[in-house]
C-alpha cells in the first residue's frame, strides 16, 4: 500500500473512531443499550483505539498526527466556550436540564440516586471528550481549508443535536419546540461559540495531512 493511500486509510479510520463517542448518547436514547453499556463496549475501546491510531498516524505522517492532536485540544478547549453559554443559560432556566450531569448519571447507571461528584466528573469528561472528538473530526475534514469552516461546522453540530433523539428524550419535543424558543436559541448560540472558539484555536489554514516523505523513505529503507 502506498504511503498516501495509508494516510487516506488512517484518516478514514480516525474519522470513524472519533465519531463513536458523540454518537453513543443519541444511540442510547434510540434504545440500542444504556449509556453505561455503550460507554463500556464502544466509547472506552474507541478512546484506546484513537490514542493508538494517533500514535501510528504520527509515525506514518507527522502532519496527520499533529492535525489530530491540534483538533482534539482545540475541540476540548472550545467546549469551554460552549459551556460559557450553556451553563448560565441553564441557571437562568433557558434550558430544560443540565445535560453533562444527566450524561453522568446515565454513564454511571445511577439515575435513581441522582448526580454525585463522581457522576459529574464522568459527565463532564464525556462532554469534553465529545468536544475533542468534534475537534478531531473537523480538523480531519477541513485539512487544507480555512479554519473558519469551524463556524458552520459548530452550527451543524448544534443543529444535529437539536434534531437528535436526545432532545426528544428530554421531553421538550422536536428541536425543543415544547420548551420554548430559549432552548433552540441557547443550543445554537452555544454551538456557534464552540465553532468560533474552534476556529480561533486552530491555524488560519489547516495543514493538509499527507505522509511525510522522510519518514516514509526511512520506513522503506528499514524494511
Amino acid at each position, binding site marked *: 500500500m502506498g504511503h498516501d493511500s495509508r494516510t487516506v486509510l488512517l484518516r478514514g479510520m480516525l474519522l470513524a473512531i472519533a465519531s463513536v463517542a458523540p454518537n453513543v448518547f443519541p444511540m442510547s436514547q434510540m434504545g440500542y443499550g444504556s449509556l453505561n453499556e455503550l460507554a463500556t463496549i464502544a466509547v472506552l475501546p474507541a478512546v484506546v483505539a484513537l490514542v493508538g491510531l494517533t500514535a501510528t498516524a504520527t509515525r506514518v505522517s507527522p502532519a496527520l498526527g499533529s492535525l489530530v492532536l491540534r483538533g482534539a485540544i482545540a475541540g476540548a478547549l472550545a467546549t469551554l466556550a460552549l459551556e460559557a453559554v450553556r451553563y448560565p443559560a441553564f441557571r437562568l432556566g433557558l434550558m430544560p436540564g*443540565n445535560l453533562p*450531569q444527566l450524561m453522568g448519571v446515565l454513564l454511571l447507571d445511577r439515575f435513581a*440516586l*441522582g448526580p454525585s461528584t463522581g457522576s459529574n466528573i464522568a459527565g463532564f469528561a464525556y462532554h469534553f471528550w465529545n468536544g475533542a472528538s468534534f475537534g478531531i473530526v473537523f480538523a480531519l475534514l477541513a485539512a487544507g481549508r480555512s479554519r473558519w469552516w469551524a463556524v458552520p461546522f459548530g452550527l451543524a453540530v448544534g443543529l444535529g443535536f437539536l434534531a437528535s433523539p436526545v432532545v426528544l428524550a428530554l421531553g421538550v419535543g422536536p428541536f425543543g419546540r415544547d420548551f420554548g424558543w430559549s432552548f433552540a436559541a441557547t443550543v445554537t448560540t452555544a454551538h456557534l461559540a464552540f465553532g468560533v472558539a474552534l476556529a480561533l484555536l486552530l491555524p488560519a489554514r489547516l495543514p493538509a495531512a499527507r505522509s511525510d516523505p522522510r519518514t516514509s523513505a526511512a520506513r522503506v529503507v528499514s524494511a
Partner: protein
Amino acid sequence: MTFTKTTIAALTALLLTTSAFAADNKFEATRVTVASNKSFEAVVDALRGLVAKNGMMVMAEVNQGQMLSMTGLTLKATLFLVGNPNVGKQIFEQNHAAGLYIPLRVFVYADPAGKTFVSYDKPSSILGQFKNDKMKMVAEMLDKNIGGLATMAAQ
C-alpha cells in the same frame, strides 16, 4: 345486512366488556402521611435503619431531590421501594398483576417550609382491588408493618 348487524353486535359486546373491566379496576387508595419534627436527613437515615425491624428491606432508593437538581429544582425528596421477597411471593402467588404496587412505595419529603413527612399508600387500600382474601390478609399485615415503619422513622 346480517353481516353488518353481527359486526355491530360484536363491537357493542366488546365495548361493554371493556367498560366492565375498566369499572372493575377502579379503586381508591388511602394515602397516609406522617409528619415529623426531625430533619429530612434524620428521617431518611431512621427509615433506612428501621426498615428491617419492620420485616422489610429497602429494594431501591430513588433520590428524587437529587435527580431533579439536574433541572434546577431544589427539593428534598426520596422514594423508597420497600418489601420482602417472602411476603411478595405470597402476594404474587395470588395475582401477578399486583407487581404494579409491590414493592411498596414509601416517600420521605420536606415541604417548602422544611417540615418533613413520611407518606405511603395503605397496602390494604391498593391491594383490596384484587378482591382476594389471601391478599387481603397479607395486605393488612403490611398495613401494620409500613405504618410502624413510617411512625418510628418520623418519631
